[in-house]
C-alpha cells in the first residue's frame, strides 16, 4: 500500500551516466525521488555521446528524454546540459564498497578522483587547454589527440573542463592563465558515501577491444572500428564529418563492414545485440552521404529483431551487398589497401580488395568489477538478471538496466531505465507534487539588462553599453552571477534596487544558468517569463570571428530582447485538477502488471478486458528459454489484482470511445448491453496481439502433423513428444515478408527452447531448424550454441526460396535448398513445427471522434521509438506489451513498468499547472477552420463547439508555436513569442546595425 512520502525524501543512486543511467535518473527525478547519478569518467553520456545519430530513426533525439518543459528549457537537450532540482551528478567516481543498512537500505562508498578544477568556478574559457603542453590519445574522437587539460567533448556534462591527473606533468601553465583561479593541482581524492533506498546499476558496457583479432587486420591503418567510423562520419569528429582513410586521407570508394567482430567467438560467446543495427546505420549514413561508395557487409545473421528493424536493415539498404560469412583473413598491400579473404556459402574461396574495412565491434560486460559488492552474480561479465524479469536482480532493491544486464540496444535500454523507475516507485511509494499557483504578468514593465562578463578581455565596451541603454531608459549592470554564492545575490540586489520587473540576462550558453536564474526570480515573486535569457557568450563572444562586432551584437541583441520583454503580458490559466484514476485497456500480462503497480502507489485503476477472463496470450505460454514458468506467475498476479481494493477489473467489457484530454479523459465502456462511463487521468493500452494463422498450405499448414510452435511447446511440457523421431522447425512464418515486414522477435528463441527441450528429453531425436537468420540476440546466443552442441541441425534459407512441406506415403516431407550443399534436400519429419509470427489485433479506437493512429504494421505507434517508447501521440495515452509490437513476456512486463513510470508523473500531480511555454487562441479572431488542429504535433488543440473556436489544452501544449505560424487568421498565438514581439525584435536587429559602426 501507498506510504506517504515527501518530495526528494527517498534517495536512489544510479550507477553509470550513459544513456540508460541518464534516462533512469530523469524518470526517477520526475517521480519526486532524490537521485544521485554516479559516473566513473570525467563527463556523462558514455558511448551514446559519441554517436550523432542512433537507429532506428537515424536522429539524435537527446531532447526527447524529458517532456516537461519549464523552467530550464534548454537543459532538456543532453548535448547542452542535464540538471534539475533533486538530481546530483558525481563524476570521476568509482564504487568500492556497499554496506547493508537497516530496512534493506544500502550505503554506497565511492572514491572520487580529483578533477583539479573547481567546477563552480570554471567558465569554460578553454585557456587551460590552449596552454597545456601534454598530448595523449583522445578517447572521445578516437583518431586524434587531446590535452591533459580537457573536456571529454564540447558542451559536456558537467559543463567544466577537467585535468587528467594521470597524464598531467604539473607544469602549472594552466594555473597561470585561468581567469577564475579555479585550478588546484593539489586537489585530493574525495570519499563519498551515499545512503540509498534503491540502486539502479546502469554501468553499460566496454567496447570490445579488437586487438586480439589479428587475422582481421586490426593493426592496419585502414581497418577501423565501428566507433572510429562513427567519429569519422561525425561533424565534430577528427575529419569534420568527411570520409577519409586514416592512411592517406583519400576518400574510400569500396568499404567493407565486418559484423560480429569480437562477438560470437570464443572470447565473447554471446551476441552483442546492437551491432547489426548500428552497423547497418553506419552503412546507411555513409551511403547517404557518399552514394557512389560501394558497400559490402559480411555478417553471420541479420539480427534486426525488433518491430522496425527488419525493414530498416533489409528494405532500406538496397545498395549494400550482404555476404553471409565471417572473413577468414584481412591483408594489406603496399598502398594500404586491404585484401579480404572469405569463403562464400557455396564453399568457394574469394579474395577481394577494399579501401576501408570497418570492424563492427560489440559490447563487453563490466559487472565482474563490482557485482560482488552487491552480492550479485554475473553472467559473461554482465549482472545476472533474475529469471522472469529483464531488470530485476537477486536484491529486490537493486535493478540492472541496459547493457549492465547483458548486451542491449538503445531502445531496450531506455525502456528498461524507465521501467526501473516504475518498479522503484511501486516499491518505495511516490510523493504528490506541490502545487504552483498560476501567475499572470502585468504590462508596463521596468526592464533591466545584465551582462555576465567573461573576463576583462571579452571585448565589450562597458561604458558605451551603459550609455546606450540609459538613453533607452534601460538600466544595465555587469554581474558575474555564475560565481558561487555572491553572484546571484548581487543580481537580486540589482533587481530590487532598480525596482525592475523584467530582466534580460546575457551570458553563457543557457544550460543550468537559465534554470537557476529563473528559479531565483520566482522567489522574488516573478513569473519565470519575466526573465529573458540571451545566449550570448558561446554564439557571439566565442563564435564570431570578428571581435570588433562584439559590442554591436551586445547592443542589438540585448535591446531586441529587452523590447521583447516590454511587450510581455499575459494571464495564466487556472490549473486543471486531474482525475485520480488510470484506465487500462486489456488485462493480459502487461495490463495486469501495470494495474498492480499503480495500485501499489495508491492509484485507482479501472482494468477492462474484452474476454471472460484476464491473462491474455500469456496463458498459452510454456516455460521460456531461460526457464521462466509463466503460468504460476500469471495466476499469482491475477489473484493479487482481483484482491486489490484499488483495482476495478471489468471482464467482458470493451472500450467504445474516449473523450476529453490528459487528466480528464472520459471513457465510454460497453459491458454487454450496458454502457459504463469512467473518468481517467491517463489511459494505458495493453490490448495485446495475435498469433499469425498461416494460410492453408502455407508451409504445409493444415496437414496432419504440422503444428504451431506455441502449441508444440505445450505438447513438450505435457510429455506428448517423447516418441517423435524427427522434428523440422520452420522459422519466419508470417514474419519478415511483404505482408508482415517485421521480425516477430519471439519465435527463434522459442524454437531454441523447444529444440533444447526435445534433445534433453531424448538425445536421439533429430531436430532441424530451417531459419533465415537465427534471432538469438544478446545472451540468448548461448542457447543457440547449446542447441548446436546438442546436435540440432540448422539450415539457412532465403525469403525467395522457402522450404516446402508435403505429405507423402503417410510421412511429412520438407524440401529445402541447402546452400552449403548447393542442392535441394528432403527431410522427413514426424512433426513440422511452424514459427507463426505475431500480428497486430488492434481494433479502431475513437478519440474525440477521430481514430487513434497505428503504425504501418497495425500496432500502436510510439511518439519516439528510442526515447519515449511507451508514449503515444496523444498526451496521457500510453501503450505497452504486444499491443505495441512483438515482444517476449518479460519484455512486455518491462514495458508496462516503463509506462507506469511515465504515467505516474501525471497521476501524482494534485493539479496540472498552467504553463508559459504555451499557445493560445484569440477566440474572436478564430475562423474555426481547424488548420491549427492538424498543425499541432501534440493533440493539444481541439475544436470547441460552444466557443465556436479552437481551444488549447494547456496541460498538453508544449509551446512549439507551430499552430501560431500555421493559423491563417492570426488567432493562434504563442506566449513565449507573440508576433508583435517578433516584429519588434526584427526591427531592432535591423535598425541597430547602422548605429553600431
Amino acid at each position: 500500500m501507498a506510504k506517504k512520502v515527501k518530495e526528494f525524501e527517498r534517495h536512489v543512486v544510479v550507477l553509470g551516466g550513459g544513456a540508460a543511467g541518464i534516462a533512469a535518473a530523469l524518470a526517477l527525478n520526475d517521480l519526486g525521488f532524490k537521485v544521485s547519478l554516479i559516473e566513473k569518467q570525467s563527463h556523462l553520456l558514455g558511448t551514446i555521446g559519441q554517436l550523432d545519430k542512433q537507429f532506428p530513426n537515424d536522429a539524435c533525439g537527446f531532447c526527447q528524454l524529458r517532456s516537461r518543459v519549464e523552467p530550464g528549457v534548454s537543459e532538456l537537450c543532453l548535448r547542452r546540459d542535464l540538471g534539475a532540482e533533486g538530481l546530483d551528478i558525481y563524476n570521476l567516481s568509482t564504487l568500492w564498497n556497499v554496506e547493508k543498512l537497516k530496512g534493506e537500505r544500502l550505503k554506497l562508498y565511492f572514491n572520487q578522483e580529483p578533477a583539479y578544477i573547481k567546477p563552480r568556478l570554471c567558465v569554460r574559457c578553454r585557456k587551460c587547454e590552449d596552454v597545456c603542453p601534454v598530448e595523449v590519445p583522445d578517447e572521445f574522437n578516437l583518431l586524434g589527440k587531446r590535452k591533459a587539460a580537457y573536456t571529454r567533448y564540447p558542451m559536456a556534462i558537467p559543463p567544466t573542463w577537467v585535468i587528467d591527473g594521470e597524464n598531467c606533468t604539473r607544469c602549472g601553465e594552466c594555473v597561470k592563465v585561468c581567469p577564475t583561479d579555479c585550478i588546484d593541482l593539489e586537489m585530493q581524492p574525495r570519499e563519498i558515501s551515499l545512503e540509498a533506498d534503491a540502486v539502479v546499476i546502469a554501468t553499460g558496457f566496454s567496447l570490445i577491444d579488437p586487438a586480439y583479432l589479428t587475422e582481421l587486420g586490426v593493426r592496419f591503418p585502414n581497418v577501423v572500428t565501428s566507433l572510429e567510423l562513427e567519429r569519422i562520419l561525425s561533424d565534430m569528429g577528427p575529419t569534420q564529418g568527411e570520409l577519409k582513410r586514416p592512411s592517406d586521407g583519400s576518400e574510400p570508394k569500396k568499404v567493407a563492414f565486418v559484423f560480429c567482430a569480437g562477438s560470437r567467438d570464443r572470447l565473447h560467446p554471446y551476441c552483442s545485440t546492437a551491432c547489426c543495427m548500428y552497423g547497418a546505420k553506419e552503412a546507411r549514413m555513409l551511403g547517404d552521404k557518399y552514394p557512389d561508395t560501394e558497400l559490402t557487409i559480411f555478417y553471420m545473421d541479420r539480427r534486426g529483431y525488433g518491430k522496425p528493424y527488419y525493414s530498416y536493415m533489409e528494405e532500406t539498404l538496397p545498395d549494400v551487398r550482404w555476404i553471409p560469412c565471417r572473413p577468414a583473413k584481412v591483408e594489406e598491400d603496399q598502398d594500404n589497401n586491404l585484401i579480404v579473404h572469405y569463403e562464400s556459402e557455396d564453399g568457394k574461396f574469394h579474395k577481394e580488395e577494399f579501401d576501408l574495412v570497418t570492424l563492427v565491434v560489440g559490447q563487453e560486460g563490466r559487472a565482474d568489477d563490482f557485482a560482488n559488492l552487491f552480492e550479485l552474480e554475473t553472467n559473461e561479465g554482465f549482472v545476472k538478471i533474475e529469471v522472469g524479469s529483464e531488470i530485476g536482480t537477486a536484491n529486490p532493491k537493486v535493478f540492472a538496466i541496459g547493457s549492465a544486464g547483458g548486451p542491449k540496444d538503445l531502445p531496450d535500454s531506455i525502456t528498461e531505465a524507465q521501467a526501473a523507475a516504475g518498479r522503484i516507485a511501486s516499491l518505495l511509494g511516490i510523493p504528490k507534487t506541490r502545487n504552483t499557483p498560476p501567475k499572470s504578468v502585468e504590462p508596463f514593465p521596468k526592464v533591466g539588462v545584465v551582462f555576465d562578463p567573461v573576463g576583462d578581455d571579452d571585448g565589450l565596451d562597458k561604458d558605451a553599453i551603459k550609455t546606450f541603454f540609459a538613453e533607452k531608459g534601460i538600466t544595465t549592470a555587469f554581474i558575474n552571477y555564475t560565481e558561487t554564492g555572491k553572484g546571484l545575490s548581487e543580481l537580486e540586489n540589482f533587481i530590487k534596487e532598480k525596482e525592475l520587473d523584467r530582466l534580460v540576462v546575457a551570458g553563457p550558453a543557457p544550460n543550468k544558468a537559465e534554470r537557476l536564474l529563473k528559479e531565483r526570480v520566482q522567489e522574488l515573486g516573478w513569473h519565470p517569463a519575466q526573465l529573458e535569457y540571451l545566449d550570448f557568450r558561446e554564439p557571439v563572444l566565442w563564435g564570431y570571428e570578428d571581435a570588433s562586432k562584439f559590442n554591436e551584437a551586445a547592443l542589438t541583441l540585448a535591446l531586441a530582447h529587452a523590447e521583447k520583454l516590454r511587450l510581455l503580458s499575459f494571464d495564466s490559466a487556472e490549473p486543471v485538477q486531474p482525475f485520480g484514476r488510470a484506465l487500462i485497456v486489456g488485462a493480459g500480462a502487461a495490463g495486469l502488471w501495470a494495474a498492480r503497480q499503480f495500485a501499489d502507489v495508491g492509484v485507482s485503476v479501472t482494468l477492462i478486458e474484452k474476454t471472460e477472463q484476464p491473462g491474455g496470450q500469456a496463458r498459452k505460454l510454456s516455460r521460456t528459454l531461460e526457464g521462466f514458468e509463466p503460468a504460476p506467475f500469471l495466476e499469482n498476479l491475477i489473484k493479487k489484482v482481483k484482491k486489490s481494493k484499488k483495482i476495478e477489473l471489468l471482464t467482458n467489457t470493451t472500450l467504445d470511445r474516449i473523450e476529453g484530454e490528459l487528466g480528464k479523459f472520459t471513457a465510454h465502456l460497453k459491458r454487454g448491453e450496458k454502457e459504463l462511463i469512467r473518468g481517467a487521468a491517463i489511459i494505458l493500452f495493453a490490448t495485446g496481439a495475435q498469433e499469425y494463422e498461416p494460410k492453408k498450405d502455407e508451409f504445409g499448414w493444415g496437414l496432419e502433423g504440422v503444428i504451431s510452435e506455441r502449441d508444440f511447446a505445450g505438447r513438450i511440457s505435457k510429455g506428448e513428444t517423447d516418441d517423435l523421431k524427427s522434428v523440422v522447425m520452420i522459422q519466419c512464418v508470417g514474419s519478415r515478408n511483404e505482408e508482415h515486414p517485421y521480425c516477430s522477435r519471439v519465435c527463434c528463441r522459442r524454437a531454441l527452447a523447444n529444440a533444447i527441450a526435445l534433445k534433453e528429453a531424448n538425445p536421439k531425436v533429430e531436430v532441424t531448424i530451417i531459419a533465415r537468420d537465427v534471432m538469438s540476440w544478446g545472451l540468448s546466443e548461448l542457447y543457440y550454441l547449446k542447441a548446436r552442441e546438442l546436435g540440432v541441425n540448422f539450415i539457412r534459407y532465403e525469403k525467395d526460396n522457402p522450404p516446402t512441406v508435403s505429405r507423402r506415403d503417410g510421412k511429412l516431407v520438407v524440401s529445402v535448398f541447402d546452400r552449403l550443399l548447393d542442392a535441394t534436400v528432403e527431410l522427413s519429419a514426424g512433426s513440422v513445427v511452424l514459427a507463426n509470427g505475431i500480428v497486430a489485433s488492434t481494433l479502431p479506437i475513437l478519440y474525440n471522434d477521430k481514430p487513434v493512429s497505428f503504425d504501418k504494421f497495425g500496432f500502436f505507434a510510439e511518439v519516439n521509438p528510442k526515447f519515449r517508447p511507451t508514449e503515444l501521440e496523444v498526451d496521457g495515452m500510453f501503450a505497452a506489451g504486444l499491443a505495441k509490437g512483438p515482444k517476449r513476456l518479460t519484455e512486455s512486463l518491462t514495458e508496462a513498468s516503463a509506462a507506469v513510470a511515465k504515467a505516474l508523473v501525471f497521476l501524482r500531480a494534485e493539479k496540472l499547472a498552467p504553463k508559459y511555454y504555451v499557445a493560445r487562441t484569440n477566440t474572436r479572431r478564430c475562423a474555426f477552420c481547424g488548420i491549427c488542429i492538424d498543425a499541432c504535433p501534440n493533440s493539444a488543440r481541439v475544436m470547441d463547439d460552444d466557443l465556436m473556436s479552437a481551444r488549447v489544452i494547456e496541460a498538453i501544449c508544449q509551446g512549439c508555436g507551430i499552430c501560431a505560424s500555421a493559423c491563417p487568421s492570426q488567432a493562434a498565438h504563442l506566449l513565449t513569442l507573440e508576433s508583435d514581439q517578433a516584429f519588434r525584435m526584427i526591427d531592432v536587429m535591423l535598425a541597430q546595425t547602422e548605429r553600431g559602426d
Partner: protein
Amino acid sequence: MEKEFDPKIVGFFCNWCTAAAADLAGTSRIQYPANVRPIRVMCSGSVDASYVIKALLEGADGVLIGGCHPNDCHYVNGNYKARRRVALLKSILTTLDLDPDRVWLRWISAAEGVRFAKVVRQMTEEIKEKGPNPMGKSTQT
C-alpha cells in the same frame, strides 16, 4: 572610401538543435562571420512567413532558418512543416519580386557545430555576392 558590404542576416534558430549547434560551435571555437543576428524560436515550424517577409522588408540581406534534421524535431514534425512553408514562401517572394535565395532553411543538429559555422559562412559569402537587399532601407536613402 567605399565600405565593404557587410550583410545583415536574421537567424531564426530552433531551440533544440540549431541554437544548440551555435553554442557548440562557440565552445569549440569554430568561428564564423559575425553577420547573423539570432532569434531563438522553439521550433523551425513556428517561424511565421510574416517574420521572414518583415525581415526582408526591413532590410535584412538574408534570413536563415535553422531546424532539426528530419525525424529529429522536438515536436515530431515541425521541421517538415517549416519546409513546406518555406517552399511556399519562396514562390510568394518571387511573385513579389523579392529574391527567394535570400531565404535559407537548413537542418543543423545539436551535434553539428562545424556545419553551423559552414552554413553561416556560406550564406554570408553568397549574400555578399548578391549585394545588399534592394528593399533595404539603408540603400533607399
